[in-house]
């Protein structure tokens, strides 16, 4: 299925793009991240991240949904 992935901060720098369209066949969002981590060489493991779908925090074992917007949230540093 096809979905959109958003990258922020160091993930965006590593991926070289702020978002991309991905053809995902993973069972859950953790699997999707592992696939993309391997492709782009992300330094951060999934345990250090949170994941969001369509603008709301989601669970790593949620299944990817076709047409959704998945964001991987590296550790935040506002304030």
């Amino acid at each position, binding site marked *: 299925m096809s979905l959109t992935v*958003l990258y922020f901060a160091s993930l965006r720098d590593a991926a070289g793009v702020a978002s991309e369209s991905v053809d995902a066949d993973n069972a859950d969002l953790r699997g999707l991240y592992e696939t993309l981590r391997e492709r782009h060489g992300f330094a951060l493991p999934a345990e250090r991240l949170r994941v969001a779908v369509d603008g709301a925090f989601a669970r790593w074992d949620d299944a990817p949904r076709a047409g959704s917007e998945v964001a991987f949230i590296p550790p935040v540093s506002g304030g």
Partner: protein
Amino acid sequence: MKRFALSPQPFEIAPLREQLLSAHAGAYASFEGWVRDHHGGRAVAGLRYESYAALADSEGERILGEAIERFAIVDARCVHRVGDLAIGELAVWVGVSAAHRDAAFAACRFIIDETKGRVPIWKHERYADGDADWLHPEPPEVS
């Protein structure tokens, strides 16, 4: 009601504080984060804040709602800058009004701590030596 905002431009504090004025409030606590000229022993030249705006907005609102539920306060606001900031610039502002100071201080501290810990905003620091880095701090231990 909108209590949290991201601001791509420098913002004025006075009109935000004014929204919190209330005849029922005897105490007002506020916090500001300013861009410091050093971090972890390195001289900082400037920084950039980037956010995931949609989620930052909703998570910020959630934090302010939690503060109003948990503490005996009248009202609260928080504004966080995004974009390029120079040394000395205002990065984040929190204001809380309450009948008494205990609740005002506790809620103000809660809001800045949760904002720093949960709102998807990232700091990119440029150092005087030419280096630059995204800050991805280790999260606090979760039980």
